[in-house]
């Protein structure tokens, strides 16, 4: 019983420590279009990647047009759905949420280059 209490206390302390170290680093997401695809990079302020983060993409009418999970490098890519402004939202958990607006002008040029053979 006593051991279990200690274990729980230790686990709680670990969680608190982890939460404290993570919250000192702001989460960001960056996106760019290239050759028919949109590439996203999600990272903490110090450069650590946001691994297994939930990423959602909304069009200018706020419709969800793509979603997925970031890989170990914090990367996630998807086909350009259409020519539009996109709001890309990363949710790294523990209240770490951030978004990036990818402008239509940047997307349009890359739809065409993606169509090239």
């Amino acid at each position: 019983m006593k051991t279990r209490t200690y274990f729980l206390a230790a686990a709680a302390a670990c969680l608190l420590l982890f939460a404290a170290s993570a919250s000192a680093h702001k989460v960001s997401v960056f996106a760019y279009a290239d050759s028919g695809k949109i590439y996203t990079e999600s990272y903490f302020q110090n450069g650590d990647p946001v691994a297994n983060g939930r990423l959602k993409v909304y069009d200018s009418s706020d419709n969800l047009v793509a979603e997925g999970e970031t890989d170990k490098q914090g990367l996630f890519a998807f086909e350009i759905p259409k020519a539009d402004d996109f709001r890309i939202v990363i949710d790294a958990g523990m209240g770490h949420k951030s978004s990036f607006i990818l402008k239509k002008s940047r997307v349009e040029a890359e739809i065409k280059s993606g169509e090239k053979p």
Partner: protein
Amino acid sequence: MRKWFSTLAALIAAVVIFAPVPGQAHFGAIIPSEDIVTQQHEGDLALEIKFLHPVEMEYMEMEKPETFGVMHNGKKTDLTGRLKPAGGKSPGQKKNDTFWKALYPIQRPGDYTFYTEPKAYWEPAEDLFIKHYTKVCVNAYALEQGWDQPVGLETEIVPLTRPYGLWTGNVFTGRVLVNGQPAAHAEVEVEYLNESAGDSGYIEPPFSPYVTQVVRADAGGVFTYAMPKAGWWGFSALTEADWTRQHKGEEKNVEIGAVYWVRTRDVK
């Protein structure tokens, strides 16, 4: 004992005050249009490369730099071909002196360290050449990676304080390197870029020691200075080059400077 200390303190103060500080310090400068690039950023980053007296706002004629480049993600890109001449002068100067402008598109997150190696400038008043290797760091899209890496110049300041996102009153700490090694006890001159004062008003030095602040690096080449006003601050670590250069058939010494620029903002 106490009296002895106060006498010593007065003596040290006298030495510091009357030490021969050159009245006008020369500074190489790279000033970007933005020090922090965000999602709201549109178009190219505009950079101005100058050789001037920052407090007095006097320009010197600047030849086209030998090198202008940027380091991002540990990779150096030469941007010398982007340099375009421009003219600038202080309110008191009659004619324009040449400075240089460049445009650069910031396309990825991370720190961009811009650097320049100018041509050596002949200064007859000091009977030597002056060559100021100059750097400035621009942060993009909240990824704070790269600012603490040396570029590999003959002499340079490597920041120990993150060189952006600084408040007025913050300190800036840096390490002076010459040929990659710490420059023990190097003299570092500090000046405020009066051009960047904006609405807060120019600095008007009450006495000449207020024009250029002077700090000396420690044995490890590390120096610190606290910046009292919002705007751009230049740090110039001066050493003598281990090479000379000819002027009218005579070998002359070369003062090499490692210059770094940071921007402060008022706490609001």
